Each structure stands twice: as structure tokens, then as C-alpha cells.
């Protein structure tokens, strides 16, 4: 049976609801040997800042129970080099390209968004608001509804592209932040980013990560992510992109049934670099086995 897999995010049509998550798929080219990148619904590139960033000193990663902690520290080539060196390849792949951006001030976000909007080949902007605002004593933009709204509004007015705001789970009530960015004009929200965690080497009595703390990802966070996605779906009317610990098609289907319009595959790409296409095939098979002709007829059909 021929299944319609296309979904719409902020007016952009994805050929299927499977995207690859920021920071887990490089700039796309790293995966060219391992899967047909053109089959992806969208690819979200590594977070981009105004200037290149060196990131944190190693060790940057440590495995944890059913997951990993990372403190990469947003190392990236910077928006200019991205446009010169990475975007030309991405223009050729035939998938939607999402540029993930971050900054240390509202002005930084605005400049990056503006630069990207003028570069042909970027279809959507995803705003990572999990970063500390250096002007406001380091409080994360994403942990305060007012700051989150402010950065969303600024990026929206600077960018000619639809904007997804990526939410952090390190808050007491994620729906408050979601409502605030919706009111500020976000076209969609994506969640969740990593959960802040820690791990200690008991022999040396030092943290496993040089940065002391890091972001937890992988299957360990999936139930938390799913709960937050479901709450957010019930709180806003813009599309919600679900992610956190998706390892296979059935994990992805849980998020779609909970109401996510699309999903992102993150840490799973490290375990198996061609997993994203297996997930696309798995979703399609699930739908055709059940006689569901359109993915949109499955999204948000959770029975309670």
C-alpha cells in the first residue's frame, strides 16, 4: 500500500516525519557513506554560532546506563564557514535543511538567524535556547519564559525563515516556556534537549567529564521526553517535534501517537549510522500493515 508520509512544519513540507537531531549528525556529510541522506525528512545541523567555537576540553563524553553524557560545549565552525564550506553540500542532498543556532545574547541569535536567512539552502531555523545568557548572569534563555519569548521574537523578526524553538527539559514546567514562545511567534517547538547530569570516577574521585556536568541523552531519557512532548502537545497549537532517546521505529511511533508532528533521531545515529532510514521504513511498514494511508491520520491519536 502507498502510504503518504509527508508532514508540514511551519509551511515547509518534509517528505517524512524523521529528522536527524542537532549535534548528532554533524553537517550531514559525515554520514554520506552510511545512508542515503536524501531519504531523510530533514537534517538538523550541529548548533551554529556567530564565531567559531572551540568547545570544552576533553574528556567530553561518558557512557551511562542506557545513554551518555556529553559536554562538547557547542564546538562549531561558525555561521560564515558553515555557509561557505558545509551548505554547498547540503543544497545537493534533496532533504529539508534545518540550521540549529545558539548565542550568548539576543543580538548573537539575531545576527546568526539573519545571516542564515540570506544564505540559499537553509529551509528552517531551529533555535537552541538551552544556552546561558551571559548578559543576564548566565541564566539559560530556555529556563525563563520571558527570556525565551524575547529571543524567539527577535529571531522571528530577523529571519525570513520559519522558526522552530528547541526547548530544554531542565525546567519545572516546560509548557510555560512552550506557550511563551508560541505567543512570541514560534512556528513550531522541538523537545527535548539533553537533561543535565553528572558521573564520577570513584577510583580517581574526579568527574568523568572535564566540564563536571554534561547533557544526558539516549534511551534513558525517552520516558521523560515522551511525557514532556505529550504535555506540550496539549498546551500549544503549533506543531511539536518530539525527540529524546528514539532508537527505533516503535519509539518514534510513540512520539507521533502522543501528538508530535515529526521526530528527531539523535544519539541513535552514533549506535548505528544508518538507523534513521531504518526508522523511516519501520514507520511506513507500521502504517501500511494497519491500512493507515496517511501519517497525519496517526499523529495525535493517543486514546485515553
Amino acid at each position, binding site marked *: 500500500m502507498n502510504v503518504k508520509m509527508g508532514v508540514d512544519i511551519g509551511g515547509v513540507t518534509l517528505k517524512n516525519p524523521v529528522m536527524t537531531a542537532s549535534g548528532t549528525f*554533524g553537517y550531514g556529510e559525515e554520514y554520506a*557513506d*552510511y545512508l542515503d541522506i536524501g531519504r531523510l525528512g530533514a537534517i538538523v545541523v550541529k548548533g551554529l554560532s556567530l564565531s567559531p567555537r572551540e*568547545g570544552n*576540553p576533553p574528556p*567530553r*563524553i561518558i557512557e551511562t*546506563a542506557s545513554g551518555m553524557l556529553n559536554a*562538547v560545549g557547542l564546538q562549531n565552525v561558525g555561521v560564515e564557514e558553515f555557509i561557505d564550506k558545509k551548505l554547498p553540500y547540503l543544497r545537493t542532498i534533496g532533504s529539508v535543511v534545518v540550521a540549529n543556532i545558539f548565542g550568548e545574547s539576543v543580538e548573537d541569535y539575531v545576527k546568526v538567524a539573519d545571516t542564515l536567512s540570506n544564505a540559499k539552502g537553509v529551509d528552517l531555523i531551529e533555535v537552541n535556547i538551552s544556552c546561558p545568557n551571559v548578559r543576564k548572569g548566565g541564566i539559560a534563555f530556555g529556563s525563563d519564559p520571558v527570556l525565551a519569548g524575547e529571543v524567539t521574537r527577535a529571531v522571528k523578526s530577523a529571519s525570513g525563515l520559519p522558526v522552530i524553538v528547541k526547548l530544554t527539559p531542565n525546567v519545572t514546567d516546560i509548557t510555560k516556556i512552550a506557550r511563551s514562545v508560541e505567543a512570541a511567534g514560534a512556528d513550531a517547538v522541538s523537545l527535548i534537549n539533553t537533561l543535565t547530569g553528572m558521573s564520577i570516577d570513584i577510583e580517581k574521585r574526579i568527574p568523568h567529564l572535564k566540564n563536571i556536568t554534561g547533557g544526558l541523552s539516549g534511551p534513558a531519557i525517552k520516558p521523560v521526553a515522551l511525557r514532556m512532548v505529550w504535555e506540550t502537545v496539549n498546551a500549544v497549537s503549533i506543531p511539536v517535534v518530539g525527540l529524546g532517546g528514539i532508537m527505533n521505529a516503535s519509539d518514534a511511533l510513540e512520539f507521533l501517537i502522543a501528538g508530535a508532528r515529526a521526530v528527531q533521531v539523535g544519539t541513535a545515529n552514533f549506535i548505528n*549510522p544508518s538507523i534513521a532510514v531504518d526508522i523511516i521504513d519501520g514507520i511506513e511498514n507500521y502504517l501500511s500493515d494497519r491500512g493507515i494511508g496517511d501519517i497525519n491520520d496517526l499523529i495525535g491519536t493517543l486514546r485515553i
Partner: protein
Amino acid sequence: MKPETCAKIFSQRETVKGHFLMIVKAPVSFREAIPGQFIMVRLEGGNSPFLSRPFSIYSIYSRGDDTFVEIFYKVVGKGTDAFSRLREGASLDILGPLGRGFDVPASCRKVALVAGGIGVAPLSFLAQRCGEDIPGTEVICYLGAGSSEALAGLDRLEKICSTVEISTDDGSRGYHGSVTGLLKRDMDLYADDDTRIYSCGPRPMLRGLQELLKGRPPGTCQVSLEERMACGIGACLGCVARIRSDGEKGGMVRVCKEGPVFDIDRVEFGE
């Protein structure tokens, strides 16, 4: 395309205490592997251990249409312990060959290998290839370990190298002290332009080697670095080391992609 593949264990045995030689049947693409490259290995299914583990290629060989990859590893934690319990016929997910291997100029006449512990794995493969590809080249291996019982990989080295020099920390065999101390003794044997030095081992050893080689022309020595890895293909930026580009200040460079082999003079080992 060279996707992750499911590979069957052809054989596995403990060579010296805590060190295992595993042979897996691999895709043909592995025939192109060069010494210094590595593979990512993961238990099939399940999330414990969760991430794949990187291992140097110890050797590659073909028999008929089949290609075999050898890895030689030391049990140090959860992942290596789990691998060591696997028997013939068990399946693993493998990805590779990955990374940039050692460069050996065709003009090279003398090769010194400096191996600390299980760092012998990529160097043994290199010794084997030097013998095959640049015949007439003298390959001398300096092998260091804690004690005589821990001299992993010695039997094979003795077959493929012109000479094997041994050091042990406790003096139970060979030179009493570090492998770099042993190399220091012989340094004037390696003064010529047609000599190359290759090394792999614990960081303090590599740092000592860098010290010892100060003043030698760039390119004299290459080392294979080890960092924790998640993806192995350059995507996660988890595995970086600080590497200088041609004398400039160092930047964070991916060990899995630009490495694991680097010129020793470019590595910033830090404190």
C-alpha cells in the same frame, strides 16, 4: 556505502592474562584497511554497554572469499569484559575501517615501533605491512609492559620484526624501566632521514617520547591517540584532542576522523 554490519566471531582466545585476540569475519571492504585505522565494535541488541568501543585493527587477512579482521584487546571495563565472554559464532555490530592510518614513506629504510602495553595492536599490523610492502626495511620494535607476564603481542612481533627490544617496569624481563628509557639508549641508531618512528601507548609514555624527540624534523614520528568515542565517524565531536596545525596554536581536532594517527610534534599532551 559501508554501513554497520553484523559480524560473526570466528575465534577468540586469551593470549596473555587479560588480553584477548578476537577474529571476526568482516565485509570485503575491510581489505583496504591500513595500519592505524580502527573499527567500532558493539554487542548486538541491548543497551549495556551502550556505545560502540573503538579498537585498532591488529591484522586483516583473507581466506578464499572471506575476509577476517583481528582485534587484540585488554580487558579494562564493562565493554571489554563483555566482549571477552563471547564465544565463536556470537555476533557483533562492527563499523569500519575508520580514521586515518600511519603514513610510511616508500623511501623509509628503518622503522622503530614504540609500543606501550596494548598499544602494540596497531603497531604490529604496521610491522606486518612494512615487511610486505617495503621489503628490505628494517623494523625494530620496542615493547614495554608492567612485567614479563604482561608482554602482549610479543610472539607475533618476534616473527615479523627484525629485532624486538623489551622493557618492563619491574625489571622482570629486558630493560628495567620505561620503554622510552630503552629507546633513549638507542637514539643514535635513528638519526638518519630515512628513519621513521611510530608509537602507541599510554599518554605519559607518548609525552615522554615527544620530549625525547624534541628538535627532530617534523614527520619523524607518528603516534596513534586514544580518546573516548561515541560515533567514530566525526559527527559527535566527543573524541577531540588538542592538535597544533603547522606550528600554530592547537585546536580541538577529532581523533576518530583527522586521527587517530597524528605527527607527534603536533600533539599538545597538556599537563
